[in-house]
């Protein structure tokens, strides 16, 4: 078969040159494709993080740029860890975290279990239930203050309707005892569907045959639920808790709009407290140390948790 001059020329071209003509090597493409993303994340996340760590050892204040910056060593950290206000904040955060997770897991799992019975129009209602989760927490939180109004709020009237109490007799966001629950309720309303969706995926991943086998062994429904359903859904549930835990540890928008941390500092979660230190009191160095502590906490807890999660998954 006669070869065309072009083919002959192509065969004569040395390999590296030919590759350059054909296109970039896979390795070059890989780096060209990945580098911009990594670069952007370094610039917007890691560089600021390093800067934060540096600032955390100083007494810098953003609102006084001309003042000399002094290195204060670990003083910021020492002050934060011994500050009783911050422990109060941590307690508020813990209360919020624990109760939102408990309620969302219980309600979310129950809903998923009910939906999984595949009653008619279950898909339609699932879509409805899911709606709150994708909305802007700040805008929704702002509107919840309206729902929580003592005289005119829909929430107060709903409670009054169920319990018979006077709707004007209690104020969810004005009362020191109720405000921590006001934020728990709003967050649960918003995020229960998230847990529900993950549980539903878990329930649907359980093969039918397992239940058939259990039925043959004459295991009661109750027993099937505790020895089959729950352990099989557990990894999914733990994943949901991980997501909710991280998100609610960072919680800012919903709560800042709902209560703004008040009354007093009963609902002042760490992010709100940090915002106050950094952008209202302008104690930049101090707030940076605070930010580092928060980040280390969330990262540390998440890593421990992921290890536990993997152990459950492998089992």
């Amino acid at each position: 078969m006669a070869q065309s001059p072009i083919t002959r020329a192509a065969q004569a071209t040395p390999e590296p040159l030919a590759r350059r003509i054909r296109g970039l090597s896979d390795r070059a493409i890989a780096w060209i494709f990945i580098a911009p993303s990594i670069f952007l994340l370094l610039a917007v996340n890691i560089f600021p993080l390093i800067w934060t760590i540096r600032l955390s050892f100083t007494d810098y204040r953003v609102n006084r740029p001309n003042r000399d910056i002094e290195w204060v060593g670990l003083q910021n950290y020492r002050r934060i860890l011994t500050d009783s206000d911050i422990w109060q904040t941590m307690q508020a955060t813990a209360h919020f975290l624990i109760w939102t997770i408990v309620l969302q897991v219980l309600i979310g799992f129950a809903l998923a279990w009910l939906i999984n019975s595949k009653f008619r129009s279950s898909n339609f209602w699932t879509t409805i239930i899911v709606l709150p989760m994708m909305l802007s927490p700040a805008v929704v939180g702002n509107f919840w203050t309206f729902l929580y109004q003592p005289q005119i709020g829909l929430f107060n009237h709903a409670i009054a309707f169920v319990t018979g109490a006077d709707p004007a007799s209690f104020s969810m966001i004005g009362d020191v005892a109720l405000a921590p629950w006001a934020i728990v309720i709003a967050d649960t309303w918003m995020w229960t569907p998230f847990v529900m969706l993950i549980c539903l995926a878990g329930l649907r991943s359980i093969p039918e045959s397992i239940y058939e086998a259990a039925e043959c062994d004459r295991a009661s429904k109750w027993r099937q639920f505790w020895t089959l359903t729950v352990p099989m859904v557990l990894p999914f549930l733990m994943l949901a808790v991980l997501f909710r835990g991280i998100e609610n540890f960072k919680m800012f928008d919903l709560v800042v709009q709902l209560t703004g941390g008040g009354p007093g500092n009963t609902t002042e979660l760490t992010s709100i407290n940090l915002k106050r230190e950094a952008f209202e009191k302008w104690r930049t160095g101090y707030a940076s140390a605070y930010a580092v502590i928060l980040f280390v906490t969330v990262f540390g807890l998440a890593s421990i948790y992921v290890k536990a999660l993997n152990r459950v998954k492998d089992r």
Partner: protein
Amino acid sequence: MSYSVSDPSRRTKWIAGIAVTLYAVITILPLLWIIATGFKSPADSIAYPPKIFFEPTLEGYVNLFTTRTRVNPEEMAALPEAQTWYEQIVRDQGQIIAGPSRYGERFLNSVIIGFGSTFLCMILGTAAAYAFSRFRVPLKEDLLFFILSTRMMPPIAVAIPIFLMFRNLGLNDTHLGMILLYTAVNLSLSVWLLKGFIDEIPIEYEEAALIDGYTRFQAFIKVVLPQAATGIASTAIFCLIFAWNEYAFAVLLTSGTAQTAPPFIPTIIGVGGKDWPAVAAGASIFLIPVMVFTILLRKHLLRGITFGAVRK
């Protein structure tokens, strides 16, 4: 229908159906209340007890888009006839239109920053996801984890240096600054989700294209991208929704030119007291597109919110 042991009885289904429906109705109530309040008059919105049935009015929407001043009845009588229907609505409240409100601008900012960052995020994210999916990248797992971990940082914690950095670069309160920031925030989501979607495309398609003489890059553009179109579209919607909803960075880093709607809506006040119908109108316009997208996305919802960790 085939018999199945785990298929619940009819009675169980009925009970489950009623319980779930009840929960759904309760959960949707606040959202319906927002939409309804948008069509109430200010007096109806704060009526005691709350009004379920009311005469709908566009007052809230008109108030949302205008700034108004109160005038005396004598001055009002001296004015010429109202030219437009919305002017008439304002006059019926004993006020005149002083000018447009900021809501339009803020909404537009949300659109610009939302779409801008989503676009950038998809370009960067698709490329990185493809590389992570198809090539042997050194330290791949570590890089992927690094990308994910950027999502764990509380926004307020990185806001301090970003605030300083943006100030030095002149990016504070600019569209470009917010677009770059939101791109970075959403990049973890887009890389993780898209990697999952691209992993599902059989590698044989590309190999066939490579044998046919395509370069890698051509194969990526002409074979992989069309195959991943659904995944890219749903990832883009997720990025758009998250950028759309973001509040913490927006409230700290923007105040005027580039302020988005979420920090603005809660600051809406009327003439004398909070104008809840206007707030609700602003919230409705802002939230309803997201509700529509959520319904469209329902098949991919789970995957999106778990960063691709749960598929199905």
